[in-house]
């Protein structure tokens, strides 16, 4: 996989993950172009399209589009299910996930994706293993976090 994008129906980018070094300028251009192409498509159309020299696999979940760019020889259907498995992982973790969860907890969305896909290839397909890794990290985090008063936080912001 070359990259993965999550964006909203309004064309707001919510998550981007690049698996091949790409210049910022090109990234922006590609994101803009691809969002335009995908958002223009109608609901019943097929989930695959050719775009530049890549194949794009996308699926819409509620207000969010999940969009993967893969290479010529990669398998489209399994990529579609990779997206679904990622959504399942997010759902399991957040408890019926919605766009706001991903906005507020963007770093979690990244960590879960990292545990699931690495270097553009799937790392572990078992829901249990991925979630276990995330939960362990959360445990470490709780041990870490020193309690602070919410008011103090608010004052700082």
């Amino acid at each position: 996989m070359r990259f993965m994008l999550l964006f909203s129906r309004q064309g707001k980018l919510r998550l981007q993950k690049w698996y091949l070094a790409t210049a910022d300028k090109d990234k922006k251009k590609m994101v803009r172009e691809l969002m335009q192409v995908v958002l223009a498509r109608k609901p019943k159309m097929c989930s695959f399209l050719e775009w530049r020299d890549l194949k794009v696999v996308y699926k819409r979940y509620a207000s969010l589009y999940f969009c993967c760019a893969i290479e010529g020889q990669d398998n489209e259907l399994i990529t579609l299910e990779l997206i679904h498995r990622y959504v399942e992982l997010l759902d399991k973790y957040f408890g019926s996930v919605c766009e706001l969860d991903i906005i507020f907890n963007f770093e979690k969305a990244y960590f879960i994706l990292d545990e699931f896909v690495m270097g553009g290839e799937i790392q572990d397909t078992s829901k249990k293993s991925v979630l276990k890794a995330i939960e362990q990290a959360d445990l470490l985090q709780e041990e870490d976090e020193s309690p602070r008063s919410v008011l103090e936080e608010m004052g700082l912001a």
Partner: protein
Amino acid sequence: MTEGCPKHCILMCVLLISGKSKEAEIKRINKELANIRSKFKGDKALDGYSKKKYVCKLLFIFLLGHDIDFGHMEAVNLLSSNRYTEKQIGYLFISVLVNSNSELIRLINNAIKNDLASRNPTFMGLALHCIANVGSREMAEAFAGEIPKILVAGDTMDSVKQSAALCLLRLYRTSPDLVPMGDWTSRVVHLLNDQHLGVVTAATSLITTLAQKNPEEFKTSVSLAVSRLSRIVTSASTDLQDYTYYFVPAPWLSVKLLRLLQCYPPPEDPAVRGRLTECLETILNKAQEPPKSKKVQHSNAKNAVLFEAISLIIHHDSEPNLLVRACNQLGQFLQHRETNLRYLALESMCTLASSEFSHEAVKTHIETVINALKTERDVSVRQRAVDLLYAMCDRSNAQQIVAEMLNYLETADYSIREEIVLKVAILAEKYAVDYTWYVDTILNLIRIAGDYVSEEVWYRVIQIVINRDDVQGYAAKTVFEALQAPACHENLVKVGGYILGEFGNLIAGDPRSSPLIQFNLLHSKFHLCSVPTRALLLSTYIKFVNLFPEIKTTIQDVLRSDSQLKNADVELQQRAVEYLRLSTIASTDILATVLEEMPPFPERESSILAKLKKKKGPGTVTDLEEIKKERSSDMNGSAEPASVNASAVSTPSPSADLLGLGAAPLTNSAPPPSSSGSLLVDVFSDSASAVAPLAPGSDDNFARFVCKNNGVLFENQLLQIGLKSEFRQNLGRMFIFYGNKTSTQFLNFTPTVICSDDLHFLNHFLCLNLQTKPVDPTVDGGAQVQQVVNIECVSDFMEAPILNIQFRYGGTFQNLSVKLPITLNKFFQPTEMSSQDFFQRWKQLSNPKQEVQNIFKAKHPMDAEITKAKIIGFGSALLEEVDPNPANFVGAGIIHTKTTQIGCLLRLEPNLQAQMYRLTLRTSKEAVSQRLCELLSEQF
């Protein structure tokens, strides 16, 4: 569940997403950025928590799509924290925001090094993820050696192994030269047997990527992958527990294993091959079973495996039974209610169409595909249908397919029109038996989609009309009629202008298309056209002056008008002035010579095909098409001399030609043999005796054989030439294998080995004595024949012999030449010697004529092990610990020829910094030093 962001961050988020306008958002963000900047710059040192907080905010702002140009240093500081969350945010920031800024990379690498050494699996995981995310060359330099060790160490945790495998894969993708192959590779292959399916999945991805470039090293993975696959496909849907996805056992791993197997030819071991065939059959069978779940995930996962299996079947292209089953399965999908499946079926069938086994089976679906073109609602599916029609097209259905595509073109989406135009143009040319059909098709193309007809297309139609005199009259008549339309596309004016300028005389006899009418028709379009077209028309006019002297004054009047002679465009003005002058002062003879009919174009690859390849990538223009193209290229070509009869008829006499252009319609062209009677293909085989020029790319291949003796020397769509050779002293034997890659017989197959003239001494003694036996002149489809060449090196030589192959394939004559890699260094015998001996001899060969030196830039990555292997492959001994500088390589050996033996010493000094080499050869014979130096310099 824990809150990832600190509270205030969420507050900010809420503010931002509820922000009323873009300006408000930008204002809010700029304020926040200013605040963070001041915190980072402030006198008070920030504690880890605050640092994390602000870095996290920056990340968030970046992810909203704003630029972030600071905070990198703070993020790097977080890496060395012992607090997990701080480290984690630090790594995330770096993964998302750092590009290879060298200063920072060094600091980051240090932090990563510490975490990798920590043996704490969580920290190791973060570090590996970071390497994989950044994946820069600097990172590869720092860690490519270390990660394989982590990967194969016995005590590494499974999760770390998975990360290490994929991390290495990522580094290999960016910097393959920095990942050293070694002992670890065999242990990685055995990860395919690992108990943990997650490890197997990650390892399979890694092995697949590595095996594509290093197939030999990973050959053993084939049998392991087959047995793993077999265990998965035969397992019950619950056996694999969490690795079962909607009742499909381990679909991701299955797809990956099938993909790995596509790096290799079908397994040679019959047991493995049988088992694999069983697996593929099982997968095909399962597709027919009723679904275990109604969920789309179930069918997607199942079909993902099925499509990958079909890809493997197509890749192997060896089991007709499986290919036909695959084709039938795809045929079912063509009518499936899921758009996704229809799309994929069309795509897969494209590749199936290029297999000789399944081409016919694919063709049976033509009606369904044409229907898809008409009824699919999604343009990307229609695009696939166009591709498939193009792929399944052959002589039998070309007329139907071209007609359907032209039909579709009328309503086609703008985004794919140009491509369809190219495809129609190619098919029409490729399968034109009747060239009037070709001319009609292209003119239709211009009429329907003139804006999308690129230059290549209309150039091509002109090339073909000029090269084929049987169609010229028809072409002139047709363009004349097409130009009558009140509004016609400018491209038609161009084609019309050119063709009437050349062949207008062929229709001038008809009063309805008399010279004056032709001229007036063209000139009526003149003022509506762009400058380049007008320039072309002016050339047509001057050609008319020559073809039709009776309208000379009319044309001169036009050229003389102010709008021409004083045109603001320099090119038009110049043409008008020059043409007017030419028509006034030149005698009829001179005019006829200057404006003589265009000579035929040299045959070359169709420029439109090249354009389509460029547009779609070479992979998409499939093999079979190439073969078909080759089959037909001679039809249009004019390269071969035609029968004597044909040229005698059309060429009354050379002098009459120059004068009588207008009168003798079926005319000449300057070199008499070029009027190609190209449908009389049979005459070609007798007249072709010339040796073809060297095949393109053959030089590269030749260079590859300097240091090795076996491999594939040449391959095109029809033929593969493999070599196996062995040399001892001044003798050698070479086995040449000719493989017919098509399913059609090659006839009159005659390979000839030719020593080029340079191989001869002045006194005509042979330097190289080659003996071959003729091979059977018939090579069946799919068969391989072998030819032995016995070689004797009589004396040192420079040029390699040429292998010329001529044969007939499906009615066309094929002629190609490749250099045969018999080079002087093949007669090397290595000589071991001590450092002392070496330098003593080195000094003895100090005559400036005996030494040849070459300083050159490295063409390949400078890897010491590869260099060593190449020097040994070159034939000399590699002398270790001889040169005082251990980075240098020295070698020694003796070249054996029948007449003499020549001692050779060589020294190669790499300069890594400059990426250069200095190569020095010293031998007792100047020519030998020279030749060896040339040969070896090409290798690095």
